[in-house]
């Protein structure tokens, strides 16, 4: 089992450019999360999906961020246009199914974004 897979691992773009991150959760996990982790801070939830439905997106800056989870499996997080303050590590996590403890989240390795 590869665990949660994210790509790209690193992305450097200039401000005002678009960027997209992809996440493949653990097979059978119904819940998918996107977190943002700024330097020196803990992860902050951007959006949570239960299957295809976004059930918690109150922290997602909807003017420039969008996300989708088609067919309730893979997910994409997009930023357009990117700003300098968007530089961070974007973490995808999944939970549910038969693996892990109740409430346990399984994280990907993250996508590190640098906006110049």
């Amino acid at each position, binding site marked *: 089992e590869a665990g949660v897979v994210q790509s790209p691992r690193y992305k450097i773009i200039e401000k005002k450019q678009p960027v997209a991150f992809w996440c493949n959760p653990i097979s059978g996990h119904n819940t998918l999360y996107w977190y943002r982790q700024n330097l020196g801070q803990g992860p902050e939830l951007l959006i949570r999906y239960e299957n295809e439905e976004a059930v918690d997106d109150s922290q997602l800056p909807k003017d420039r961020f969008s996300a989708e989870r088609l067919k309730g499996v893979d997910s994409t997080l997009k930023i357009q246009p990117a700003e300098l303050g968007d530089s961070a590590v974007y973490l995808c996590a999944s*939970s549910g199914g038969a693996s892990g403890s109740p409430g346990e989240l399984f994280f990907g390795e993250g996508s590190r974004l640098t906006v110049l």
Partner: protein
Amino acid sequence: AQRVTQPEKLLSVFKGAPVELKCNYSYSGSPELFWYVQYSRQRLQLLLRHISRESIKGFTADLNKGETSFHLKKPFAQEEDSAMYYCALKPGGYNKLIFGAGTRLAVHP
């Protein structure tokens, strides 16, 4: 407000010394508390949860509702314990985690 506070950014100890990583939370309901750990070049992973009341890698944590704390303890630190440690709160009825800012534990030989 739901919040997790880890007051120490860095905790530096020598091998064999006791360790206590502090975590305080703010939540009006009945919380579930977790400790996650991130070793160098590895992904964030669960260390322990208060409901299980287990000792994992020699670490324990007790939920103190009176002091709203969930401190992580280990009697004798090892060099391989060096990592970032994050305390996390799961609000009742919500399938999400709220993380603290993290504490870096450095164990020196």
